[in-house]
């Protein structure tokens, strides 16, 4: 039994693969047979010429037996599946003959391909990052986790130096720190903050790009006491150095030191995110203290041949153990970890979810678009039914007709795909370049602006799928029972109707089209919520700025020097605050990691006594005078005080929503909470390891906009921790002005420059500008959805139109007879359109149900107003769908009986 199946499969495979050779073999065998028979006949005394003739006669039709031979080998099916150039030519001719279908179907397919390919590219690049270097799968990221403080330890300059010296399982260990540095072109230049990376040469090489001019960072640059060198980015070179080809060797001041430019990187080089300046990272081998050097964004390494991640982690931990630290924190609280690159990206753990949701969206979209085009193609093909019946009568097999319609669909899909792919490639390039340059848009370097081969292959697969759906499905429908229709054709009747699965297709696509704009509704609602959000302060009274103090060249020195730098930075910050407060218009100055109206990060917390149950709340670190400066008095308990700066104080303040939502109105004062780390790589740590120290709630404050209003799942409950501005390197400053807040901008910049040339101010704006920015983003998304919805609606209407037009075309003769017999227009409409109209009505009804379900999922309950809005929307969509029926109806009513009967 099984051997029979295998033999058949093998024979089929051989035959299909060498179809022409099989034919030649058969011919050869038949010829040999006839020759032998002829020779036999001659031996029996038949004349040679007669013998050959008789042998041929006895054999029978060679063509006939060759066909039957192919059939015996199971190859007839394959013969019908072969496509010829003529099929494609015919397909191209069909595009020109039916421009309406070509345009609508082409736009639909182009749209599906563009959206599909872009989503696929985003998914593959973002969720499954791949470094642009050889053997990228051997690249790992090394991190140090501070289990006491529950955060990544980024100042690990001393450790990295030891690893570089001693590790055998890892090669090319290199760190990258990112920071902004002030670039001073000439003496007296106030300086401009430039996004900069300090990098080891080995890490720089991971980015895999060749410099445009000069050289990149090399190992020699890392030597202590060597000359200060800098590699600049394309845009810095173009804008600040006027694309001067003689820029190599020029000296510029970066921070406090003079550097020599040694290289220019090409356009689009972003490592480890958008940077314009690269400086060598120098780590100190003599330091045996942690906490030294700059905070490193990444530490890359490459696994040595044969080494595993587990071995590498064990070796690094062994190296760490040999060097006790002098710092107060116990060394055991720092755990070195080695992770694959994908594990370290933000989406690493959410990758599967991301991929799933994108795929679900894509599948729904593609199903909608392809079903639509299939309907259009079917409606068109139905008008060619006579042609197909004639072709069948002339001997075309069902497979042949299906393949011809498939070829036509392939031509249309290919045309759409070329347009879609071009749009996707251009859109992706523009989007990537735009995102990379957006202020604060830290786009990682492994994202690249070109579509990958995988995405192009994906789009080709979509073309094939589309051709199957839009070519083969209608063809199956049309050719099903064609023999029956072949007989009916003589009697002048046509039997093709949209029924069964096609009714489902029509109803489903109308329903989905109607449900689609609901996403617009949600986005619009988000925008409305963002607009309606009360941040709790008068935003127009405050000028804000993102503030970062540069720890400068001393980054590369030992821990002792780092402490001195930190002390200097603290002094700078204090001086800056004091100078601001002396300004006549300034009423208050405060600092925080985030300000009201900004999207605060959500963190998981556990309430004391809840044994492991966590809730998510917004969080921020704020300065001692934050609440008073924003005009909010603490409603219960106390505000922060200087003693809270002591890390062992563990005091937190919660907002009113926290008391209501998390504590259900219980007295918060004295309750204890602790933060639970849920960041990537936490799965192998126990809850106790992930939970931080307990904090005591010491006060309650009114809500101060801890969400930006865009996420309805964020309750707004929040926890504030104490922030010591002196120790922070990147925070927001908010200044309350007694008069016009915007007018303070230039003064604030001048004060910053006068305080310290390395103090950088970015995003200087009024506090209410934050909200405007959020609304702008939501509205941008709203417009994108509008475009998508518009296309979906256009497609839907086109298919309703084609279904109705199809009904009229199919029954022209019947309408003619009815008119001739004196039927009223109403009766004709009822008779002809009853079925399509029922389908449309059913679609609208299902759509309304779908909308209700979706809205309920998000909103949980509907107000009367929202319910009537949905009902009204359903009615409007019903009217819109009816619009698509107008032209076919008019056409039906305009049918002249004499013409209709003549046409048949």
């Amino acid at each position: 039994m099984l051997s029979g199946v295998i033999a058949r499969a093998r024979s089929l495979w051989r035959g299909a693969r060498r179809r022409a050779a099989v034919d030649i073999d058969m011919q050869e065998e038949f010829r040999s047979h006839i020759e032998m028979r002829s020779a036999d006949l001659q031996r029996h005394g038949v004349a040679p010429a007669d013998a050959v003739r008789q042998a041929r006669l006895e054999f029978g039709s060679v063509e006939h037996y060759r066909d039957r031979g192919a059939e015996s080998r199971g190859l007839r099916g394959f013969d019908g599946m072969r496509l010829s150039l003529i099929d494609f030519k015919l397909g191209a001719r069909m595009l020109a003959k039916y421009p309406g279908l070509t345009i609508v179907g082409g736009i639909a397919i182009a749209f599906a391909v563009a959206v599909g390919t872009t989503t696929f590219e985003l998914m593959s690049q973002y969720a499954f990052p791949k470094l642009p270097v050889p053997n990228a799968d051997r690249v790992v990221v090394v991190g140090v986790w501070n289990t006491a403080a529950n955060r990544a330890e980024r100042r690990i300059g001393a450790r990295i130096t030891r690893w570089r010296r001693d590790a055998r399982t890892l090669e090319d260990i290199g760190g990258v720190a990112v920071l902004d540095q002030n670039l001073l072109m000439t003496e007296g230049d106030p300086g401009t903050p430039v996004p900069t990376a300090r990098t080891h040469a080995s890490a720089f090489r991971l980015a895999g790009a060749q410099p445009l001019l000069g050289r990149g960072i090399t190992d020699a640059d890392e030597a202590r006491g060597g000359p200060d060198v800098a590699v600049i980015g394309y845009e810095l070179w173009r804008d600040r150095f006027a694309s001067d080809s003689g820029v190599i060797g020029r000296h510029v001041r970066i921070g406090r030191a003079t550097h020599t430019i040694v290289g220019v990187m090409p356009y689009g080089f972003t490592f480890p995110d958008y940077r314009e300046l690269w400086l060598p990272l120098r780590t100190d081998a003599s330091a045996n203290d942690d906490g030294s050097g700059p905070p490193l964004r990444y530490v890359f390494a490459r696994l040595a041949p044969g080494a595993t991640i587990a071995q590498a982690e064990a070796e690094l931990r062994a190296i760490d153990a040999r060097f006790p630290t002098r710092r107060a924190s116990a060394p055991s609280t720092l755990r070195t970890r080695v992770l694959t690159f994908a594990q370290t990206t933000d989406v690493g753990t959410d990758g599967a979810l991301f991929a799933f949701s994108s795929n679900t969206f894509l599948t729904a979209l593609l199903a909608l678009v392809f079903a639509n085009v299939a309907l259009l193609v079917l409606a068109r093909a139905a008008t060619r039914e006579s042609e197909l019946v004639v072709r069948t009568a002339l001997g075309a097999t069902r497979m042949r007709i299906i393949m011809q319609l498939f070829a036509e669909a392939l031509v249309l899909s290919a045309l759409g795909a070329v347009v879609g792919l071009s749009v996707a490639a251009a859109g992706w390039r523009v989007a990537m370049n735009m995102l990379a340059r957006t202020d604060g848009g830290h786009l990682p370097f492994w994202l690249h602006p070109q579509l990958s081969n995988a995405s192009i292959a994906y789009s080709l697969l979509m073309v094939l799928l589309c051709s199957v759906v839009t070519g083969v499905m209608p063809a199956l429908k049309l050719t099903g029972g064609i023999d029956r229709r072949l007989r009916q054709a003589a009697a002048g009747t046509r039997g093709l109707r949209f029924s069964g699965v096609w009714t489902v297709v029509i109803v489903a696509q109308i329903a989905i089209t109607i449900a689609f704009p609901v996403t617009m509704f949600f986005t619009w609602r988000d925008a409305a919520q963002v607009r309606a959000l009360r941040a709790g302060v008068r935003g127009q009274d405050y000028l804000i700025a993102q503030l970062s103090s540069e720890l400068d060249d001393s980054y590369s020195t030992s821990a002792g020097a780092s402490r001195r730098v930190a002390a200097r930075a603290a002094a700078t910050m204090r001086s800056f605050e004091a100078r601001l407060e002396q300004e006549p218009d300034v009423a208050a100055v405060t600092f925080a990691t985030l300000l009201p109206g900004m999207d605060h990060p959500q963190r998981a917390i556990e309430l004391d006594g809840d044994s492991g149950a966590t809730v998510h709340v917004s969080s921020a670190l704020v300065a001692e005078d934050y609440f008073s400066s924003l005009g909010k008095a603490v409603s219960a308990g106390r505000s922060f005080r200087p003693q809270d700066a002591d890390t062992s104080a563990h005091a937190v303040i919660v907002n009113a929503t926290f008391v209501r939502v998390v504590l259900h109105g219980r007295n918060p004062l004295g309750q204890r909470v602790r933060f639970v780390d849920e960041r990537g790589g936490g799965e192998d740590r126990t809850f106790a390891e992930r939970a931080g120290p307990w904090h005591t709630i010491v006060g309650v404050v009114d809500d101060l906009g801890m969400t930006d209003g865009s996420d309805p799942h964020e309750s707004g409950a929040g926890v504030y921790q104490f922030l010591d501005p002196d120790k922070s390197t990147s925070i927001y400053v908010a200044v309350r002005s007694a008069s016009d807040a915007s007018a303070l901008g230039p003064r604030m910049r001048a004060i910053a420059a006068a305080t310290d040339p390395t103090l950088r101010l970015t995003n200087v704006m009024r506090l209410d500008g934050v909200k405007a920015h959020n609304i702008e983003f939501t509205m941008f998304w709203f417009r994108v959805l509008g475009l998508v919805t518009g296309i979906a609606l256009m497609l839907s209407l086109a298919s309703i139109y084609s279904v109705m037009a199809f009904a009229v075309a199919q029954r022209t003769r019947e309408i003619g007879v009815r008119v001739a017999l004196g039927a009223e227009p109403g009766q004709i409409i009822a008779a002809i359109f009853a079925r399509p109209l029922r389908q449309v009505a059913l679609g609208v009804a299902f759509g309304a149900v779908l909308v209700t379900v979706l809205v309920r999922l998000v909103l949980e309950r509907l107000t009367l107003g929202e319910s009537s809005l949905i009902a009204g929307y359903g009615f409007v969509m019903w009217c819109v769908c009816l619009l698509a029926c107008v032209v076919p109806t008019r056409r039906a009513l305009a049918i002249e009986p004499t013409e209709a009967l003549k046409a048949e």
Partner: protein
Amino acid sequence: MSDQAGLLPGTLDLLILKAVSLGKLHGYGVLLRIEQISGGALLVQQGALYPALYRLEHQGLIASDWGVSENNRKAKYYHLTAAGRRRLGDETASWNRLVQAIARSLAATPQEI
């Protein structure tokens, strides 16, 4: 009435398997062998032999390779596979049972009823 009989449907495959079981044969040889072993009683339409050969080969019951005929002509030779040998045994047994049953039925007399 001629001594030659047309084939019963389904019997050509059995005859081919039998013919090929007696030795490697090309297509024309199969035809001659069937004529020979049936004493010239069974007539096979020449061209019709080949679809049957291909069907048996497709099912893995016979296998083929190109060779040279006794007259120095290029010819494709068929031989029985192990699966074909099993099938021949089964089919022969089943055929014999059928023949016996029919013979018995035809020999029935009113007395036996």
